[in-house]
């Protein structure tokens, strides 16, 4: 489609720059970018179940954590090479998501959201109580000297998640997910196998989050339940996707870019206020831009009236 050519060209150019330059950047900037890639990949992975399928999961950090711990345990205890451990981590997360998804995806609205939250919390508590995961004391990975491998790894995973989203936006499977989001009963009447499609979407979303988690574990070198299974991680991936435009391909990327830059800037200026501002950002985005940046860019209008439009629809 012609309208896609500019964004694709931009994306390709950005990719080229990102691939070619890390050696020239300061260590601080490299770490910032790795973190950015991670959040963007998480936002893109959430977009599959939350944006395309319309099932807003509030517990995807559970799959991130399962990936992190599965990779971590295999790396340390089983002493597998990292590539294998990472692949296993992703698969473990995907399988876990499929198993959890089968009963939970039958729930609607708030019940689904809270069930996913419950899954994340339960998973954290279970990991905390297991000995193989190191329990409360956590797991320590072998140290690696350079951040560059992680830079490229995270970038690759970001690329993978973005490509999955892109494929969804113009494939039969993607149309099925969108139909489920728009009207699940109608979708079923049209011949879409809704339970299967939902479970696949949830599983892929979880598996990708698990891959991110696996790389995260090795990068950060030390993981513990409190640090890995954070609710704030889920909120970040959701708000980035929503701010950028849930259900679009580039939305989560944009959202991650803007929000993590703002957050980074603020946290260097006002250290103690950083999280506070993150909370305010969430409130402001929901109030003023629930449809996200992507929608605004697509329509090429930035009128104040659009900001207020939500109020008429949503207020009591």
């Amino acid at each position, binding site marked *: 489609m012609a309208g896609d050519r500019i964004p694709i060209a931009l994306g390709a150019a950005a990719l080229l720059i990102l691939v070619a330059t890390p050696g020239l950047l300061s260590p601080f900037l490299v770490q910032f970018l790795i973190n950015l890639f991670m959040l963007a990949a998480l936002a893109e992975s959430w977009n599959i179940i*939350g944006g395309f399928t319309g099932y807003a999961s509030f517990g995807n950090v559970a799959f991130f954590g399962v990936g992190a711990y599965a990779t971590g345990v295999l790396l340390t205890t089983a002493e597998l090479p990292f590539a294998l451990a990472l692949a296993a981590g992703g698969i473990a997360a995907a399988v876990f998501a499929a198993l959890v998804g089968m009963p*939970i995806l039958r729930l609607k609205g708030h019940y689904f*959201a809270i*069930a996913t939250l419950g899954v994340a919390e339960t998973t954290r508590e279970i990991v905390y109580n297991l000995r193989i995961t190191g329990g409360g004391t956590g797991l320590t990975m072998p140290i690696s000297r350079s951040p560059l491998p992680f830079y490229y790894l995270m970038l690759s995973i970001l690329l993978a998640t973005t490509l999955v989203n892109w494929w969804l936006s113009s494939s039969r499977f993607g149309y099925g997910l969108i139909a489920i989001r728009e009207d699940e009963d109608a979708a079923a009447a049209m011949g879409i196998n809704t339970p299967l499609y939902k479970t696949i979407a949830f599983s892929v979303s979880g598996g990708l989050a698990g891959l991110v988690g696996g790389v995260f574990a090795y990068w950060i070198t030390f993981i513990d339940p409190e640090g890995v299974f954070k*609710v704030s991680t889920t909120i970040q991936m959701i708000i980035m996707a*929503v701010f950028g435009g849930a259900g679009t391909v580039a939305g989560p990327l944009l959202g991650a870019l803007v929000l993590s830059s703002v957050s980074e800037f603020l946290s260097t200026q006002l250290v103690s206020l950083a999280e506070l501002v993150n909370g305010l950002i969430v409130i402001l985005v929901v109030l003023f831009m*629930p449809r996200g940046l992507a929608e605004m860019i697509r329509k090429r209008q930035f009128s104040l009236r659009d900001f207020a439009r939500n109020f008429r629809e949503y207020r009591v």
Partner: protein
Amino acid sequence: MLLTQVLVNGILLGGLYGIMALGMSLIWGVMNIVNVAHGALIMLGAYLTFWTFTLWGWDPFLSLPVTIGVLFVYGYVLQRFLLNLIVRAQLFLTLLITFGVEVVMVNLARIAWSSDLRQVSPDYAAANFSVRGITVPYVRLWVFCATMVLSVLFLLVLEKTRLGLAIRATSEELRAARLTGIPVAHVYAVTFGLGAALAGAAGGLWGMLFPITPVMGGALTLKSFVVAVLGGLGTMMGAIVGGLVLGIAESFTATYLGPTYPNAISFGLLVLILIFRPTGLLGRRG
């Protein structure tokens, strides 16, 4: 008599869980808002009780009405001027915004009051009595009585007053309520205020038994969910029954499995109930 002691401990704690869930269940049932900031409201109530006790020596039980009043106003304002703006949006947006509110409240508390552990310890804190080998700290007993009194008062307001009728009517049928002249924006705000007041009371009482920190609310929000769903969403009696069930379950888990297990059990219970009996123990089917 360990069994009975564990049971008694569970019941005493359960009363507290009950009024926590009552506030959440009310807001959820009437406005379909799942208030993730519920725990933060509890935390606010706890800190209020702590500061009035520490700065002015107010007895924590006697300062409860003040805490309830302050939290009611706070809740009213929050709903009227913020949450009312998005109350008819998709469910996950309202969930997301209350997450934002929670983060803001917790971090403001952290900045204002630091993360140091606080405790409310009046002179009678350590006193207890024994009945047939079962030890009951006076404070726990009085806290339990307070929760029962508050629950009854709340149910009376809901069932017997005009305000309660307006709240129940608005929750049943928004458009019809509007047409009969009920000021919905105001009723919603009052409802949230009541829910916040209950949370504040729960916080004040909680603070007498457990340490107070800015982040204490997170787990309590989830436990309130568990109890609200367990008892049956929208049924007030269900919240109280559910609270007792959770309190007893946690007490047994902590004693017989270990102190790190109760949370895993509560959250696991939540997921199981949502899968197998989402209407809860007392809720109506479908």
